[in-house]
């Protein structure tokens, strides 16, 4: 297979990657075709290594686990049945069960994270104001130490609010620059650029912007588009230029 599907940091760990592979293959999480999924998983790890990305140890542990389960499932059933004859009631344990349970559990929280993200977005649409400085109303007579209703976290919290406030100061015109270059817009531009170039362009050509911030936005836009399966990145061999293509069925037929 000479198409390397560059996914990079689009995954939050081995469980996330496995879930992605399972969803993409449209298979039942309760009956995972382990040979197929393991192959795809190994292929991904391989790609990461080709791109010289650090493959976190968790990914390698999972690779080992998958291979172990795969080999266990290949064990001839009949031999086992011979021994199990007298224990008819003992149900054969599926070697995939533990992994399956972890995936299901992880999927629940991933779902919850999605919901939180939605809520975060909605909340981001309403603005409040910095509390007024109430100190003019403090009566400055008390000299005795007194009981104070504040913990150290309240103090840190207050400092945090200060940082936030500084970040969202009303901009003096020039500050708007960053807003002019949102990821969504860049994603559209990339698709547009691909359409103009018959669906294929060089990865490097996407980065004709000079400024660091713009480079990063472009890079993040490419990641987002790959995650959304709008584009695919191909690299024919190590260190050769990566080409970026529109995600189309024929991409795979070739």
């Amino acid at each position, binding site marked *: 297979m000479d198409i390397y599907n560059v996914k990079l940091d689009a995954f*939050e*760990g*081995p*469980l*996330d990657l496995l879930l992605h592979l399972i969803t993409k293959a449209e298979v039942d999480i*309760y009956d995972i075709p382990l040979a197929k999924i393991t192959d795809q998983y190994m292929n991904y790890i391989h790609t990461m290594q080709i791109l010289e990305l650090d493959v*976190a140890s*968790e990914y390698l542990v*999972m690779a080992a686990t998958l291979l172990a389960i795969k080999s266990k499932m290949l064990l001839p059933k009949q031999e086992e049945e011979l021994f199990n004859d007298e224990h008819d009631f003992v149900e054969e344990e599926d070697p995939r069960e533990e992994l399956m349970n*972890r995936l*299901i*559990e*992880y*999927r*629940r*929280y*991933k*779902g*919850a*994270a999605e*919901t*939180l*993200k939605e*809520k*975060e*977005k*909605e*909340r*981001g*649409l*309403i*603005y*409040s*104001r*910095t*509390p*007024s400085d*109430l100190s003019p109303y403090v009566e400055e007579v008390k000299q005795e130490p007194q009981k104070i209703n504040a913990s150290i*976290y309240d103090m*840190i*919290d207050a400092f*945090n*609010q200060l940082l*936030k406030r500084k*970040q*969202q*100061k*009303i*901009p003096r015109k020039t*500050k708007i620059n960053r*807003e002019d270059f949102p990821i969504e817009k860049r994603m559209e531009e990339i698709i547009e650029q691909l359409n103009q170039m018959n669906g294929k362009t060089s990865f490097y050509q996407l980065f004709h912007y000079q400024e660091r911030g713009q480079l990063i936005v472009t890079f993040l836009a490419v990641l987002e588009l790959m995650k959304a399966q709008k584009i695919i990145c191909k690299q024919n061999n190590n260190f050769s230029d990566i080409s970026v293509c529109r995600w189309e069925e024929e991409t795979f037929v070739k």
Partner: protein
Amino acid sequence: MLNEMEMKAIIEGLLFISGEEGIDEKQIADVLEIDIVMVKELLSNLIEQYRSETRGMQIVELAGVYQLTTKQEHAPYFKRLINSPNSATLSQAALETLAIVAYKQPITRAEIEEIRGVKSERPIQSLVSKVLVKEVGRVEGTGRAILYGTTNDFLDHFGLKSLRELPPLPEKEDDTALEEADLFFQRLQENLVEN
């Protein structure tokens, strides 16, 4: 004695000066020297009034306190003037970690990592530094691992009144069937032992 109109005006002023810190019913009651029932009534009255008029602000309940905020539908206009407060939204790693903490608190780092399947020190640190998560205690015994829980800022960040308002965690699907089978077996065994 103040009349209702005046009391509502003072509540409005209190909401205004409290800004994003918000103010709770008890504080309002103390300031106006009236009882909580009355505060509740005045507040819901004021909230209704804000709703029925074409206003630039609304009163919302967040993290157990009342806050005066702008309206969602006006966001496009404010975006032209101010950097969005939540423009620095949370990373996927932070969101996953936060979801686990929110539903399973109090919880240790090791337990979070078991569910996510990856090291989670960085997202936890980032959540702590954003005051969305905090240390709420220690596990007893050796090691005394830190237990994490969510903060009031967490509720505010996601527009929640309280933890009870968290949307239900997605179901494990077929779980009910399994549980029922388990329950059946358990009963069966109990019966067998009894006899």
